[in-house]
Each structure stands twice: as C-alpha cells, then as structure tokens.
C-alpha cells in the first residue's frame, strides 16, 4: 500500500486518512478506468471498425490488390450500380433467399414442437437429449459439409443407396415402391438439387440450436398457467397452441432474427458442398459466396465491398421487417 502511494505521490498531506471517493478522484487514478476498458476498444478498432470503414472506402474504388495500396482508383458508385444490375448477383440473392426460406422455416416449425415435446416428456434425461440435438451446432461446418457431400455422393453415397434399395425392392415381379423412390442413383450435384441439398444441411445443423432457444424460453413460462388450463379442461395441444406459442413470441423474434442474419450470410456450407464454385450453373452460389468469388477469384475487391454493403442493407431491412412483425409493440 505504501509503495503505491509513494509511487503516485498524491499532493495530500501525509498522515491524514482519505475517503475512498477522494482516493479514486486522485489524479493518478483518473485514467485507470480507461486503461481497463481499453482492450476492447483497441481490438474493436483494429479488427472491427477499421475493416468496416475501409471496405466502405474500398466500395467506391477499383483496386488491383496485388499492386498495392497506391493502385486504388476512384470510380464513384459504379461498383454499386454494376452489382445491382448484375445478373450473377441477382441469382446469388435469389439462391440465398431460397435457401434461407427452405432451411429457415422448417427450423422453427420443427424446433418449437420439438422443444415442447422435450419440455413436457423428458425429466431426467432432458439435458442429454438436448445436448444431442445441440451437437451439430458446435461441430465444425467444414466437417459437416464434407460428411454430407460423402453421404450425398452419387455412386457411393448412403442416401442413394437407401433410396435405390427402396426403389428396387422387388416383390415377385413388381417393384411396389418404384413410384416413390428412384431406381437409379440420383446425381445430387445437378442444379435442380443443389439448393435443396444445402438447405437440408443448414436445417439439420441449426434445428438443435433453435430447440435450445425455445426450450429455455419455455422453462420461464409460469407453471400456473398450465395448471389453470388443465383445470379448465384444455387438452395438451390446446395448451401448446394457446399458452406456449403466444408466450414464446419474444424468443421467436430473437430466434428468427438470428436465422435471418445467419442464413443471409450463408457461406461455409454451400462453399464446401459446391467445391467453392457455386455448383453447376451457380445453382448453389449464395450472396456471401458471390462476394468471396468476386474478391478472391476475380480479384475485384471494390465490387466485392459494394456487394457486402448491399448485403448489409438487405439484412438490416429484413431484420427491421421482422421487428415490425414479431417485435414487441410499445
């Protein structure tokens, strides 16, 4: 204690006790809080704010990156007008929204009943079961995508094996399931299947995460509501529909917001599944992939930055819409 005081040398007469407030106001301590909070701001400025502003700056330039920073060339809003009228960008946004809906809606439609089921039917083993559903979320998306491309492999994949063995199942001379299942291997890389395949992987990965969100919200719903409903003679599905679902609305808002943001930024799954190309005829190329390809394959960082800002505006707009739809009314 004495060493600290002597180091700071407060201009106070010795041998007089100071209050805590006085001590904190001493000149030596004024900067201390700022030092303690600074790591966040320094890291944020370097890794958050600077790239943000730099990409905004970049989006108004043409830049041959390998030529160095001096090679930037001001082009005004040309990158934005080009991107907005670009059919590749439009296709990629269409793909993104298609996959976002095909993967996003089932996530919630499945997760809410599933969470209700877990909430009401499991007591002891609930955490284990929830953990199993949650596992895909914490698994590396690269690993997941690789496993699924193997499963979806045309000639050697499990999925085709199951489908065709069902389709070729023979009773006597007829194949009773041939109308429903294929009898020959399906090439899942064909453009008509690419988006479905990606959406399925994304759905599978995030359904557990949403289940956990909804389950935690359900656990905060007061039990007496259900008890009162039981006394009034409400059946289990009625309790679900008239109590659980309305009470989940704040969590739905949160979970749907996360799904919108996550699905519109979808990158890793389609990137690995299509081998980084976007698939045949770009059927599985998302907007985030378009941005990456524009920057790192075509070498046009300016246009890629413009794509990222347009994507940001789109996400902000859709989140705002979601807020209007599901957010709390004041």
């Amino acid at each position, binding site marked *: 204690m004495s060493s600290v005081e002597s180091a700071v040398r407060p201009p106070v007469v010795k041998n007089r006790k100071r209050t805590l407030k006085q001590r904190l106001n001493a000149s030596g301590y004024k900067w201390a809080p700022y030092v303690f909070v600074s790591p966040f701001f320094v890291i944020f400025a370097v890794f958050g704010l600077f790239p943000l502003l730099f990409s905004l700056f970049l989006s108004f330039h043409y830049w041959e*990156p*390998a*030529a160095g920073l001096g090679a930037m060339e001001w082009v005004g809003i040309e990158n934005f007008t*080009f991107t907005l009228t670009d059919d590749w960008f439009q296709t990629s946004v269409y793909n993104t929204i298609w996959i976002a809906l095909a993967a996003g809606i089932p996530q919630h439609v499945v997760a809410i009943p599933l969470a209700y089921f877990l909430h009401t039917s499991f007591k002891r083993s609930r955490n284990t079961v929830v953990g199993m559903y949650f596992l895909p979320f914490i698994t590396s998306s690269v690993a997941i995508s690789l496993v699924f491309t193997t499963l979806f492999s045309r*000639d*050697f994949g499990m999925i085709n094996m199951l489908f065709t063995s069902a389709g070729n199942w023979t009773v006597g001379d007829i194949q009773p399931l041939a109308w429903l299942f294929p009898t020959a291997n399906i090439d899942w890389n064909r453009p008509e299947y690419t988006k479905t395949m990606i959406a399925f992987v994304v759905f599978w990965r995030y359904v557990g995460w949403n289940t956990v969100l909804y389950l935690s919200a359900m656990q905060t719903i007061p039990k007496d509501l259900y008890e009162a409903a039981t006394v009034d003679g409400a059946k289990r599905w009625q309790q679900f529909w008239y109590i659980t679902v309305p009470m989940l609305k704040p969590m739905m808002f949160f979970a749907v917001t996360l799904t919108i943001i996550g699905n519109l930024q979808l990158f890793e799954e389609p990137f690995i599944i299509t*081998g980084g190309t976007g698939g045949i*005829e770009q059927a599985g190329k998302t907007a985030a992939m378009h941005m990456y390809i524009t920057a*790192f394959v075509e070498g046009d*960082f300016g246009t890629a930055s413009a794509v990222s800002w347009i994507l940001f505006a789109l996400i902000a707009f859709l989140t705002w819409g979601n807020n209007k739809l599901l957010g709390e009314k004041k």
Partner: protein
Amino acid sequence: MFNKKKLGTVALALGTTLALTATSAWAKTTLTVASFPSFDQAVNSAIPLYKKLHPEVEIKLVSLAYGDHHNAMTTALATGGNLPDVMGIEYGYIGRFAASGGLEDLRAAPYSAEQYEKLFSKFTVPLATGGSGTLAAIPADIGPGALFYREDILEKAGVTKEDLTKDWDSYIAAGKKIKEATGSYLVSSATDIKDIVIRSGLKDGQGIYFDADNTITVESDRFKEAFRLAKAVREAGIDAQVGAWSSEWTEGLRRGTIASQMMGAWLGGHLNGWIAPESKGLWRSSHLPAGAYASWGGSFYGIPKKAKNKEAAWEFIKFMTLNKEMQIAAFRDLDAFPALIEAQNDDFVNQPIEYLGGQVARVEWKEAADRIPAMDVHKHDPVAEQIVNDALEAVLERDADIDTVLADAAKQIKRRARR
C-alpha cells in the same frame, strides 16, 4: 526487497546475452520463403543442401494451403506488410501477380534474368511476363498435359492407344466401344474435352479467352468445336459426369470405372501415391488426342518489391530453378516436371516408370512440353472461365444452341471484364 547490486549484475548479464544474440543474428540473414503444398517440399529438401553452400543464410519456410497461401500473398502485396523474400506462385495466380507490378522486375539489374530465359521451356516465361515487358517470376516446374489410361480396360474392349489419340471422332468411337464391352466410362467429365479443345491450336502470344489485343474469342470455331465435341461425348454416354478431385472421381479411377483421365503429367504421381496405388502396372500415359498440347499448372518463384533480402532471395531462386540437380530432385521426389530444359534432357527422363508398367513416359512428356504454345494469360481469365463453364452446362443439360450460348457468353464476358 531486491538487492540493488544483485539486480545490476543480472541486468548486465541479460544485456550482454541480448547484445550477443543480436550480433549473431546480424551476421545471419533469415530468408523467408512462402510456399504451398506440395511445391513447398522442394524447398524443404533444398534447405540442407543450400545451407552447405550458404551457411550464413537461415531459411524460414512458411507454407499454407494452396488457396490460403495465394490469398495471403494477395493481401501481403496489397498492404505491403508481411511479405516473404521469396514467393512461390502457382499457375492460376501468376498472370494476376505478374500484371500487378508488386513483384520485382527480374529482367532489370541487378537480376538481369533475360540471359536465363532461354534455359526454360519456352511457354513458361511469357506466363510470368507482365504487360510492360517485365519478368515477375522464374518458372520452377510445369505440367505438360498427358492422357492417362487403363491399358487392361482398353485391351478388354479391343481398343488401341491409337484409337484414342488419332482424332476426336475416333476417341468418341473408342469410348463407346469401351462402355459397351466393359461398362467403364472413358472420361470423367465432358467438360474435360472442352478444356482441351479450347486450348489446342493456339499460337504463341494468344490467350484462351482473349486475344493479344483484348478481343474476346469465345465465339471462334475453337470454342464451337469444343462445345460440339463435349456435347457428342455426353450424348454418347461415355462421361461419368463427375468433377475432378471429387470422391466419385477418385473412386472411379481407383475402381477402373473411369478408364482414362487427361491431366498434367504429375497425375501419375497422384495415381501412384494415393488415388490408385493398387492398380500399379495397369496405367499408361500417352499424348493428348488429336495432337493437342496443353499445360496443367506449374509453379514459379518471385521476389516482392518490398522484400527485405532481395539479394539472398535471388541467389536462392537461382539455386532452386537453374540448378539441374535440384530440379531433378524435385522431379524424382514430387513428380514436378522441371521447367529447366537442361534437367529435361537429363538421363533421368529416359528411365522407365514402374507404376506405368515400365513405360518411358517422361520422354513423351518432354516432347509435349516442347510443343506447348506460349499462351497469354489475361487477368479476366477466371471470369471468362466461369462464364464458359456455365454456357457449356446449358448446352449439355438443356440442349441449348451452341452459337447462341457462345454469343451470350461473349456479351457476358464483355460486361464483366469491364476494367
């Protein structure tokens, strides 16, 4: 409390050690080499040899995966930070890096590399040449195109190597025979045929998609023929419709359901190493069909303008590329076909390759390397390639008219190659 005297002694000792390490580090140059697998193996095996010649140079190899390495190099060139002294560059990026001006001009003093240019396969140097006649990198290895095929499958179907290579019509007819007799596909993908035909018949200085004066060439007969043949292959049902390096592709080659593959000569090493080691002795190599000559990949070394040890970097590059022994070592160990002509003429080329049933295949690869035209690389090639691939899919999948899709492709390329 600390004893002040003791503290002083410690500080003095520490200072001396620091000063000593500093001086020893001063005497030693640390040369940073950035590379990617498996090109980095050449550097790895060169380090002990190089150290004997230049004990004062410490080599630090920084290796990243292919894509990561080139992204990191792009970023490093962009910002001027974290640049290596020697940069390994692959074929797919050399055009862009050479045009950027971020690399030293090796034709200028003190390098004066012009004197060495004739020592390499003639098609390599133009690849590394920037727009204003600057030389951005020195070639290390190349990938002359070859047709790898399963001799036993051909034999079973009664097809000869000549049937495959005479011309494209004969190639497709042979593929049908093989499919009928053995059930194996001749090609992995119809796109492969397109990729070769659009590269064949090019003269020195011409590009694939762009002419020397930047005109777009995708509406030329070269592309029409390529699309027509790819369509014929698809209609004949002789392509397995799988992309290279996919799991179906490697399994197909391993099991022999894909009977041939056209690729760089280094594919032999991959087949032997991991794709199909058990079919040893069954594979053979030949020239590409219809007298086509094309190159698949290749690697280069360049020096960034902002590198710290340019002099040492240049010494090292010369050692790696102009030294016959080093080039042959990489040839032997990595199947990296040397760009140095002197190494191509070494007796090593005449040795039989056990995996290919004792065939003396390297001689053929060398002949191919001699005939590959010096193609011009354009910075918009990746864009054009995507567009042409999409156009081909429209033809193969939806039976679109070839002339129409190519005209559309030309328009698309023109729009996208806007700068």
